């Protein structure tokens, strides 16, 4: 690991100012950046820890039914939060899929998202929760919907100096589920990740969201598939149509993990499975 200047600012403004400088990197949980620095794929001149800034951690259920997840909340906290388990099950299940407990005790949800891997395990759950991402920068704060945050593999709309502070999950979903397609039970990366969330009224789907990870340059929502569901009961015929529509939204690559054809096929299969489970839970 190359040496670097280390900063532990205690305010967001100071962190933003330092992070806006060239060759600066943020340290949240460290589980991506430290590995990158060891491999010399990352060699920042300054590393700015977010760990001493108050107010960035914690998970809070608000009076209006929304849930606020601090960017510095540990992935393990997200996994075990009763509020998230109950109202955004897919997100809790995604968090539980990351690495090992030792890693989840270090890694933060903000880091998992800011790293902008298309295969991040919390991203499909945040997509189907319709999460709003609060961002602080040198010029003030702004909010970006999670489905507009990513611009490519490892790329986001974050400007120099901008820092994710919080994820706001606006309203509870009555049923949701995340499936990670993988080989190992733990410590594996997703071949693909699929999440579905629904709200039901008398057996009719009032709204549905489908989030797909690792099947496109960025995590995506399968909006055409979602639109087929609203206002309908889930029948086997509809389920088949939705699976096909979700697969049509995927533009995966072939890599050493699996082929594009396999990924596309599994989007169809796993969309049907997650959706059925989400409806069963609703």
């Amino acid at each position: 690991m190359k040496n670097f200047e280390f900063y532990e600012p205690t305010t967001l403004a100071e962190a933003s100012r330092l992070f806006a400088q060239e060759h600066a990197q943020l340290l949240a949980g460290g589980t991506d950046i430290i590995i990158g620095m060891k491999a010399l794929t990352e060699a920042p001149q300054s590393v700015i820890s977010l760990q001493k800034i108050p107010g960035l951690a914690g998970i809070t259920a608000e009076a209006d039914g929304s849930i606020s997840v601090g960017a510095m909340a540990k992935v393990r906290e997200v996994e075990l939060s009763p509020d998230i388990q109950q109202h955004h099950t897919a997100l809790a299940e995604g968090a539980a899929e990351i690495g090992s407990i030792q890693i989840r005790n270090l890694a933060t949800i903000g880091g998992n998202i800011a790293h902008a891997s298309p295969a991040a395990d919390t991203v499909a759950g945040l997509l189907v929760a319709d999460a709003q991402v609060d961002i602080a920068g040198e010029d003030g704060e702004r909010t970006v919907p999670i489905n507009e945050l990513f611009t490519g593999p490892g790329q986001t709309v974050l400007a120099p100096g901008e820092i994710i502070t919080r994820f706001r999950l606006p309203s509870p979903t009555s049923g949701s589920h995340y499936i990670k397609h993988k080989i190992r039970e733990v410590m594996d990366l997703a071949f693909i990740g699929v999440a579905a969330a629904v709200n039901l009224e008398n057996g009719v789907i009032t709204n549905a969201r489908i989030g797909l990870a690792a099947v496109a340059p960025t995590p995506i929502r399968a909006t055409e598939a979602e639109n087929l569901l609203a206002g309908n009961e889930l029948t086997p015929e509809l389920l088949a149509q939705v699976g096909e529509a979700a697969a049509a939204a995927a533009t995966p690559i072939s890599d050493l993990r699996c082929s594009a054809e396999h990924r596309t096929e599994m989007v169809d299969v796993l969309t049907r499975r997650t959706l059925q489970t989400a409806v069963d839970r609703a």
Partner: protein
Amino acid sequence: MAKHHVNLKVNGDEHDLLIEPRKTLLAVLRDTVGLTGTKEGCSTGDCGACTVIVDGKAVTSCMVLAVTASGKEITTIEGLASDGELHPVQQAFINTGGYQCGFCTPGFIMASKALIDENPDRSEEEFRHALGGNICRCTGYTKILEAVLKAAEEVSATA
């Protein structure tokens, strides 16, 4: 590049150190504090050999910058025994032969201790899953799991 003053509380002892920010907690524990019980396996967080407990949570110390551990309570394998008596998890590993070459053992014991502290009443399947971040190169998993279950049972019974 400036060095940083760090106060590490390891197994109840305080160490005031001046260290480079790039040093991992694992490196400082082994090379500076001199506690070599914590092992370096993969150094990428995959194997769990470097597991220590920081403020009650098991973490892979190869993925922690020592500067960020300043002021936190760190427990390593050397800090488990008290008054000459081994911790129940250590004793269970000995009694069941839960080790072969022994290199992964400190990591397995620290990860198991944190799990048992949190909740000893887990099923075999749950322990197996929760220890998925620890790898035994000798593949001695059967005896390791047996040891963990025995220790959990003992802790649960005396709780």
